[in-house]
């Protein structure tokens, strides 16, 4: 199957599925009844076919006619109208809705061409709300086809989105594509058309407006030139191509989101059954959705189940309980899972019980609200089928244990334990569900077979079995959506941490205070055993600084800097092509362009920005956030919301930290103490608030270290070493040699202590790690990082600062006690190692599958699998993979050293292969090179 045919298959299956669910929603502009659908269809047709003359002999064609929304109106103007659509279900529906008419031909097309239509046979071709959802190669092919089928005098009108280019996955059939007007026009001219914008239509969403999109109808008039290849046209449309990364922009997420919104609208309008169908559609088809749809889902479910519970005739559970069964089950539960037993017996009956029981021929089944936790009629057969299907999923192959989320009445668990040879565990979100199941039927055989059983919150402190794989019951996903989502995050972040070894690169800035942070981050990852590359571009800084020497105009300087960053970015793209990574962690101010980030994302690299700066002071994130899959910030609240609004994929709070291997207590010589020490010190740049605050400390034994301080009194005496920038290895000496380190967070606007200051600077953690005593200004986020008063002493005003300076100078024991507690705290909770664990868990929580696929798609994985019977070879493959070596022989022999002891047989064989390769390559090059 060629790539175009694959896309056609994808479109066909996607649209058949959607039409099968609800044709009006997915194809009829979301109208709730057909009359409305026909009316808007006619309106849209009039707009798109404005000024196009028809006539009895004229023939028109609609590409992507769906269920024929515009066909009726078109039939009134043209002699004959052809509607073509990839979905057979849509065409069948259109035939059913419109009925037999001689004027209309409704055709199921391939989805990528107009093969059933003769060349040069049409007067008018149009497409509305269809082309924009198609993958770019398909659009390109249609442009070629339109040119083919149009008469030389014909015209085409196509509705497209023009403006900002959208990053859409190449197999996505739902997200809207949009193109730059220049690119679209170029592509149309390559296809053999003169292209112009006929009219603009209203946009559907505010988001489109904010992205600068225009909903346009473009007119294509055939020119004399013939069409270029569809490949060339596709390239012209979107030069960088569409995303290939599996989960970059997830169409399933959009589908889930749309369907759930629809379900909510239905539930609001009292259409509970239809709402339930929509939810079921999501559960059945959108399991891989990664966006946060849970909020909507829970709202819909509350509304829909409330409406439905009145309609379903359920039998109250109480009357069905069998105390004997319950007791017998409890005996086994107590024996097998005493912890769960304790939870069950401790759990009280809910105040409002929405549960009920219904009898089936297989036994009783459990309902919560209107949701049956088993199959409402054939629980055993349905359980069997679910188990069979689930256990055959690809990911189950290598699983060492299966963890099923959702107990229900246990029918499906019975099936899973019977069909699966691996250990089976179960996690039930709600203890009362398990309680009911224990009363409902004899589940002792299931309890006996389960390897683990955990309930509720216990899951999150559970030591997950190694190599376990998760199976979520759809019913549980409906009833406990938030829990299931947390469980998945927990599960996949744990699995990711223990199983994944993605290749990570840490990109630092050209210069500045974040430079050491990049090093600490890289070193932490390295110590954790990750395959990590530190990309130090600080060597480019000299060139960057030189720009201002040559170019004096500020605007031009800006342009030059941009171009310089583009150059550095290109170097980055090249180096990452030579030695690819899976995750790129960019520190704030890392010199990387939007284009480079897009290119890397297209290659499947997960882009991460650790924005360790004040988002209010450094605002370049506004343009750049959208190129990152993850943005980690040192601030919360508005910062996170704004980053999200700027288009960042996921945004999480992740404060800075210390590197205990570097920031540590030092044994200083008396000379060093003399040079670097003082009763009071401050290290940092001379920001406005610090200048203002520290001027009042002129009479204190106080040393200031750092740049950008005034040279006027009293700073001429306070500031050390001519106000030069202090290196990290120097400031840890200052921290260590000083009795009281002042830590006043910077502010360019406020005087003294910034009352709205939130983030905590790296110095706070670094001072603590050095075992140094600090007085720190109040920060909103400090209390969740340190026990204020115990582990850190803060001041709220300059007066407070001076009082505490005097107090603690007089009480060295208190200082010592606080410093020791602070050091213990940061080593435990605030090291860069800890931060990297947190960062990676958050990445794994949603990108586990993507990363796993990349890892298992790596040639190393194939090699490791194949080398099963050759332990040493396998071990070498693993080692090379862990080192981040490129897959191949060079990686396998990289650490073989001759002359350092006996070579193993495997080593000799690998070296043999290596020498064979070089010899043959050399001979070939001799033969070709020296013949010349």
């Amino acid at each position, binding site marked *: 199957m060629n790539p175009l045919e694959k896309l056609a298959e994808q479109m066909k299956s996607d649209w058949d599925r959607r039409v099968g669910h609800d044709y009006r929603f997915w194809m009829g502009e979301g109208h709730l009844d057909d009359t409305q659908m026909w009316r808007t269809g006619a309106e849209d047709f009039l707009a798109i076919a404005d000024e196009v003359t028809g006539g009895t002999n004229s023939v028109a064609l609609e590409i992507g006619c769906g269920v024929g929304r515009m066909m009726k109106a078109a039939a009134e103007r043209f002699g004959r109208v052809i509607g073509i659509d990839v979905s057979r279900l849509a065409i069948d529906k259109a035939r059913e809705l419109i009925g037999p008419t001689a004027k209309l031909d409704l055709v199921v097309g391939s989805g990528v061409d107009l093969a059933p239509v003769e060349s040069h046979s049409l007067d008018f071709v149009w497409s509305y709300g269809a082309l924009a959802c198609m993958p770019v190669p398909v659009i390109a092919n249609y442009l070629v086809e339109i040119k083919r089928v149009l008469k030389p005098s014909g015209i085409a009108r196509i509705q497209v989105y023009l403006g900002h280019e959208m990053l859409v996955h190449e197999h996505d059939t739902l997200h809207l594509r949009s193109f730059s007007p220049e690119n679209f026009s170029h592509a149309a001219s390559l296809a053999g058309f003169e292209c112009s914008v006929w009219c603009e239509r209203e946009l559907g969403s505010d988001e489109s407006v904010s992205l600068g999109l225009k909903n346009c109808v473009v007119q294509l008039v055939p020119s004399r030139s013939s069409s270029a290849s569809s490949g060339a046209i596709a390239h012209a449309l979107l030069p960088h191509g569409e995303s290939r990364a599996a989960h970059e922009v997830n169409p399933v997420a959009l589908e889930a989101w749309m369907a759930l919104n629809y379900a909510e609208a239905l539930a609001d309008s009292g259409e509970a059954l239809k709402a339930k169908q929509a939810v079921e559609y999501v559960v059945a088809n959108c399991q891989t959705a990664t966006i946060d749809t849970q909020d909507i889902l829970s709202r819909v479910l509350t509304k829909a189940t409330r409406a439905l519970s009145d309609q379903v005739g359920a039998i109250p559970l109480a009357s069905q309980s069998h105390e004997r069964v319950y007791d017998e089950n409890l005996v086994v539960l107590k024996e097998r899972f005493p912890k769960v037993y304790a939870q069950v017996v401790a759990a009280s009956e809910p105040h409002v019980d929405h549960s009920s029981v219904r009898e089936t021929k297989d036994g009783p089944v459990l309902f919560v609200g209107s949701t049956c936790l088993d199959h409402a009629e054939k629980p055993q057969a349905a359980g069997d089928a679910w188990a069979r299907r689930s256990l055959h999923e690809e990911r189950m192959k290598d699983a060492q244990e299966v963890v099923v989320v959702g107990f229900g009445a246990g029918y499906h668990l019975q099936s899973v334990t019977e069909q699966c040879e691996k250990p089976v565990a179960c996690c039930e979100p709600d203890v009362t569900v398990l309680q009911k199941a224990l009363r409902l039927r004899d589940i002792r055989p299931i309890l006996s077979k389960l390897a683990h059983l955990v309930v509720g919150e216990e899951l999150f402190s559970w030591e997950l079995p190694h190599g376990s794989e998760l199976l979520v019951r759809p019913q549980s996903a409906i009833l406990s959506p938030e829990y299931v989502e947390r469980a998945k995050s927990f599960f996949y972040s744990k699995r990711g941490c223990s199983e994944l070894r993605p290749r990570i690169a840490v990109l630092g800035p050209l210069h500045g205070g974040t430079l050491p942070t990049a090093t600490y981050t890289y070193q932490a990852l390295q110590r954790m055993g990750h395959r990590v590359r530190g990309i130090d571009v600080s060597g480019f800084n000299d060139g960057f600084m030189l720009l201002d020497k040559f170019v004096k105009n500020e605007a031009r300087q800006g342009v030059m800097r941009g171009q310089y960053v583009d150059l550095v970015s290109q170097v980055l793209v090249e180096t990452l092509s030579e030695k690819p990574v899976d995750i790129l962690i960019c520190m704030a101010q890392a010199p990387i362009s939007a284009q480079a980030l897009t290119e890397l994302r297209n290659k499947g690299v997960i882009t991460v920005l650790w924005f360790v700066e004040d988002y209010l002071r450094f605002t370049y994130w506004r343009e750049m956030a959208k190129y990152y899959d993850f943005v980690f910030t040192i601030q919360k609240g508005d910062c996170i919301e704004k980053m999200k609004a700027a288009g960042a994929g996921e945004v999480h709070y992740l404060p800075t930290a210390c590197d205990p291997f570097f920031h540590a207590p030092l044994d200083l010589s008396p000379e060093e103490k003399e040079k670097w020490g003082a009763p009071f010190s401050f290290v940092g740049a001379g920001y406005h608030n610090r200048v203002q605050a520290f001027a009042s400390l002129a009479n204190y034994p106080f040393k200031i270290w750092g740049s950008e301080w005034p040279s006027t009194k009293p700073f001429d005496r306070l500031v050390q070493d001519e106000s030069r920038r202090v290196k990290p290895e120097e400031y840890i000496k200052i921290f260590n040699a000083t009795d009281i380190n002042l830590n006043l967070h910077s502010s360019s606007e406020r005087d003294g202590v910034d009352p709205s200051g939130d983030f905590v600077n790296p110095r706070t953690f670094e001072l603590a790690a050095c075992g140094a005593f600090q007085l720190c200004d109040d920060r909103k986020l400090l209390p969740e990082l340190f026990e204020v008063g115990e582990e850190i002493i803060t001041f709220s005003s300059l007066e407070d600062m001076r009082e505490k300076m005097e107090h603690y100078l007089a009480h060295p024991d208190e200082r010592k006690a606080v410093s020791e507690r602070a050091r213990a705290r940061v080593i435990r909770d605030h090291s860069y190692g800890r931060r990297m664990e947190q960062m990676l868990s958050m990445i794994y929580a949603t990108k586990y599958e993507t990363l796993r696929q990349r890892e298992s798609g790596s040639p190393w994985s194939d090699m490791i699998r194949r080398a099963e019977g050759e332990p040493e070879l396998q071990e070498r493959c693993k080692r090379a993979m862990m080192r981040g070596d490129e897959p191949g022989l060079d990686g396998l022999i990289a650490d*073989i050293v001759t002359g350092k002891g006996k070579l193993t047989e495997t080593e000799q064989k690998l070296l*043999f292969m290596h020498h064979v390769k070089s010899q043959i390559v050399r001979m070939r090059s001799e033969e070709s090179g020296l013949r010349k």
Partner: protein
Amino acid sequence: MKKRYPTKNRVLLVNITRLGDMLQATPTIAGIKAENPGCHIAVLVEKQFEEVCHVIPNIDEIIGIDLGFVVRNLAREKDGINDAYEYVSKMVQELREKNFDYCLNMSSSAYTALLLSLIGIKRNGGWTADDEGYRVIETDWARLFATSVFHQNRQYNSLNLVDVFRASADVDMHPRNLLINVVPEAKEYAQSLINEAGFTNDGPLIAVQAGASQGKRQWSPSRFVKMIKILTEQHNARVVLTGAAKERSIIDPIVEGCQSANVISVAGRTSVPQLAAMLSLSDVLVTGDTGPMHISVAVGTPVVSMFLASALGFETGPYSEGNIVLQPVIGCGPCNPNKPCSKPECHDMITPELVAHLAMARVQGEVREISSDLADPRGVIVYRSRFDSYGFCELVPINGKSNDPFMRYRAAYRKLWLDDIGGFEVEGPRGGTSLKVLGEELHGLPEVRQCAEQGQCLMDSLSLYVRDKATTALQFKKINEEISELDRHIEELGLSHGPLGALTRMFIFSKENLQGSDPLDLASQMKGIYQDLERRCRKFAEYYASV
């Protein structure tokens, strides 16, 4: 001749990649067979040469290995490495199961050495590798092989590599030519090509191999045209241009340039056996240093061969009596085989007229002398091949006295090696002059010899240290440093005094091949190596003085 492993039972000969190499091994193969009647001889060759080996006499088993498979799979993504690895494992296992008791690997490549180390054959005549992956060359002759082909030393060697190879395998009883079977069907085919050619001349049939393995060894087509025109127009000759299909880009222009009914090309139309048959029907072959040259020698057809660019007649010249070798005299020749040449001036030193003359002269009979007017020995030395009294092939200049500055060194080395590692009784040196030679003519030699003596003293000290339990680590460290420094100095002397390169290189190879780990034994082996060096320095000076 001194022999290391006189008896051989199951022999593996590793000769993986080139047809010429295979043919050059034929005297050795025949010799092993003759000296060890009933022994089993297997050859390990690249799969594509398997076919060719069928025409080599005395081979009992041909083992083809598919190195291309290994390389292709290594280039393939995913689990190509596993396929290559499995193939190698299987190959090693199969070779082990064949229980060879002797192996002769004359390929200096690292991969054949590693392969042999993997197979684990105990007795070796050539290259192998030790447990730690280091190159091991057990025999002096094989070390001499490696020494002689070391680029700096090439000019000083006059022993044909066929003989060095043979001597590495302890072979005395050898044919004085290469061997190949000419099969009747091939001969019929070759004859039919000649019959169908439509020659109008009826003079000698002269084969011309115009193609060469490297561009810089390729005499230009226009020179070939001129040479062939002389043969066909002045000597009534018939000319057959031989070659492979890929050489037609060179051969076709020659045919077109000649515009003669008496010139045909069979390039691409003959298999190796058919080419052998065609050469057997020819009266002489005009060629460069090529595979067909060796085939011609093997079928008994004399050759007139041009050794251009990196080719050196002494090394790989035609191995039978009565062939003509043309070696240009030029400062840059023989050049490094691995470097291209954009201006091969050595080609100008051989004229078409000279080659045509030599070809016709050789057709008519043995050529033992030619006038220096025809070939000025300052530009090209014309040699005739023959065998010396020890059965080693040699080249004798026949166009008068040349000023070849290397001749005397070559002669001295030839005697040295035949005496010292061959155990032959070589015509004795004239005593008395050696000291003078040592000091004045062979610069650096006294110093090398002195180093060799010093080395022996150091080894005596080392042995004492080893025996003395009170020796401190510092003392060991110091003496080790002295030894390293001394060896480095010896190596540097060889590099700075070209004529001594072979002596010091042999020393280096010997040192690399120390075996075992017992310090006393190692010190004793090492002392022997310094003694070898000292003795060889002395003999070299004596032989140099005697020639």
